[in-house]
């Protein structure tokens, strides 16, 4: 086997439960983003653009969409003779078969995979962040400092620092201490969950900690390395980075793409984001359509009005329909005379005619107020919304709904209709 200097392990098994019905049937890394992409495209593209050609993708929760999307890695040039992308689901072993119980445990269960490439370094990534980053530069930093572990960290505003896991460094960027969501932060460098390990160091830690239940990088492996006198460094990253963990931050990150010159610019030539898309046709904008401040994916047909929205590929928006400040994912069909205000509509949803989404005043969601807030209407994939109904704010819909599900034709603010998916 050809030896690889560094290989990447991409953690993509999480559910992302704070995305509510969006992830009831798909893993969070497979959720659509930016009118064309899926969240996992960003770390995968970063890998190939950084010259990393061997990536293990650890999957667990609802992996079908993820598996289909990744395939043999053709869109990212990760179909290689040696290396390339390998999807690594949990597998049965002769003595103890178990699910991946934590981020580090998932890596531990795939020691053989990493060993087979005999890498010098292993890059640990998570599949749920939106950013562009050159891991090669981070590796150079790691080597220069003769580090055992390098953690990517970004400066956050001081007033928000207490929401993050922070690293405290000396003047040489060597990490002296960690603080998890401290009340009085002493640093504003937040860990981004991106690590480079010397493989020998990580391997030793994983094996020693193998009995640890729910073994996690942040909670167990990094502290273990620190306690054992390993050299830990913080690599400061100053570009755009967004954790799209909640519906609010997911919506916001999409909306930021619409800005005239977005902070996160997809139109730059030199750091392309690759994805697997089967639609290549141009989009059609009809004679009475209006499209302003929006991005629209391939093959969509727009007959209505779209303002400040992100529209995926193959979406149909009917006549006299107005879509405002919303995310509509691919292959969703929206009828005529519909008003959509601040909604997230997942893939392959069908919305009838004369529907109004996002009416009235926001009310606290009764099902899960921490998930369904931000005044959004969230509709899960493959759902059906019948003609002529109104839907309030902070609501969630999943599954094929009919008129009977809407008392007096209205789903009031804060209510939910969940007829499909894992989360009930």
């Amino acid at each position, binding site marked *: 086997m050809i030896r690889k200097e560094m290989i990447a392990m991409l953690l993509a098994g999480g559910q992302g439960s704070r995305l509510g019905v969006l992830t009831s049937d798909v893993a969070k890394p497979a959720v659509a983003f*930016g*009118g*064309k992409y899926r969240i996992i495209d960003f770390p995968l593209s970063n890998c190939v653009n950084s010259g990393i050609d061997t990536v293990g993708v650890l999957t667990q929760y609802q992996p079908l969409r993820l598996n289909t999307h990744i395939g043999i890695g*053709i*869109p990212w040039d990760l179909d290689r003779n040696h290396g390339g992308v390998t999807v690594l689901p949990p597998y049965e072993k002769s003595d103890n078969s178990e699910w991946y119980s934590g981020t580090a445990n998932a890596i531990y269960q795939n020691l053989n995979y990493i060993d087979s490439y005999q890498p010098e370094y292993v890059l640990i990534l998570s599949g749920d962040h939106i950013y562009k980053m050159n891991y090669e530069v981070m590796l150079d930093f790691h080597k220069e400092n003769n580090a055992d572990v390098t953690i990517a960290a970004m400066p956050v505003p001081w007033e928000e620092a207490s929401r993050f896991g922070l690293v405290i460094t000396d003047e040489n960027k060597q990490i002296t201490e960690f603080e998890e969501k401290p009340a009085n932060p002493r640093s504003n460098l937040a860990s981004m969950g991106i690590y480079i390990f010397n493989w020998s160091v990580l391997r030793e830690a994983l094996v020693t900690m193998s009995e640890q239940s729910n073994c996690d990088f942040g909670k167990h492996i990094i502290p273990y390395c620190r306690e054992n006198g390993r050299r830990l460094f913080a690599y400061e990253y100053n570009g755009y980075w967004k954790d799209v963990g909640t519906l609010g931050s997911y919506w916001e990150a999409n909306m930021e793409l*619409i800005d*005239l010159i977005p902070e996160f610019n*997809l*139109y730059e030539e030199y750091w*392309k*984001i*690759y*994805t697997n*898309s*089967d639609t*290549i*046709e*141009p*989009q*059609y*904008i*009809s*004679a*009475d*359509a*209006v*499209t*302003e*401040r*929006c*991005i*629209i*994916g*391939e*093959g969509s*047909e727009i007959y209505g009005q*779209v303002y400040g929205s992100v*529209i995926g*590929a193959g979406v149909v928006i009917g006549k006299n329909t107005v879509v405002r400040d919303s995310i509509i994912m691919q292959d969703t069909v929206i009828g005529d005379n519909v008003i959509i205000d601040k909604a997230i509509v997942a893939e392959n949803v069908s919305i009838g005619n004369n529907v109004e989404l996002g009416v009235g005043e926001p009310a606290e969601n009764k099902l899960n107020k921490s998930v369904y807030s931000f005044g959004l209407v969230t509709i899960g994939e493959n759902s059906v919304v019948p003609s002529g109904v109104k839907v309030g704010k902070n609501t969630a819909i999943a599954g094929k709904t009919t008129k009977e599900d809407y008392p007096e034709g209205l789903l009031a603010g804060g209510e939910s209709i969940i007829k499909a998916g894992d989360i009930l």
Partner: protein
Amino acid sequence: MKALGIILAGGNNSRMQELSNKRAIAAMPVGGSYRCIDFALSNMSNSHIQRVAVLTQYNARSLNEHLSSSKWWDFGRKQGGLYVFNPTVTSDNAWWYRGTADAMLRNIDFLKRSHEPYVIIASGDCVYKMDYNKVLEFHIEKKADITIVCKDMPMEEDVSRFGVVRMNEDSRIVEFEEKPMIAQSNTISAGIYVIRRRQLIEMLERSAEENRYDFVNDILIRYKNMKRIYGYKIEEYWNNISTVESYYQTNMDFLKPEVRKYFRDEPKIYSKVDDLPPAKYNVGSDVRNSLVSSGCIINSKVENSVLFKKVFVGKNCVIKNSIILNDVYIGDNTHIENCIVESRDTLRANTFFSGGDGIKVVYEHNERYVI
């Protein structure tokens, strides 16, 4: 695997004006996201024809680049594959391809070493969708020597740029005239032929002995009465790109919902993937009845037009009834009407282009300053 495919993509046509300076017709961008040859290639792939040869000659750089990987059309296989044959100097031949028959003759080893009993010959400059197996079935059923796919053109259309055929009631072709002065019928050859492989080899070798090099004139027309040549009618959409007008019209056809739907439905037309971000509409964009491809950024008015990939439209522009090919930068306050703007062009701000009653091909050769 009953048939192998040959796509004739070497041609040029002076009636394409400046558009053909840059590339062979088969590499012309079509319908916002395709190249002309994608239609023949996808039809081959969707008809489960696994061995396909593309014969190129005229300005093939762009075409070769497009075909640099065969995976987009699913030809990257151990069984079969995509073969691109450019003319080469050999020990016994220093000519360019002297015609379509010569092009095939010079690659006769490809034909001889294949095992498929039939050959589908298609030209790379037509826009259509077709299951070649249906033609092959017809060919076998009629016990034909050669089957020519034909198309009835609208009565008012001038067909003098095509090969015009007349069939009897059994679909046998009784007359074939190439680019006639006065056409005797409105049925034309669609440039797609089915022939037995051994028959083709024999005909090509015989023509070569007589120094005849053109497939249409020296084989189809010459053998018209000796061999059983049949016509199979294509009823669906078919268009040929050979003039600026036909190119313009073919692209504008994609503004019709039925044409878009026809090409979008399965089986699909494949093309090389470009990995461009979705199209972006900024404040001031006013797009009506137009096709917009990925990577475009629009800041002003676009009407009844087709924008290919990665077009930038500045502020206060008006683009009307025009085709903007890929990677064109249009500066602010520019007016474009009834034009085809050549790919990778840069149009300065405050300029005016109009095709008047006709269609103008715009190619400005300006430098682009990239920030």
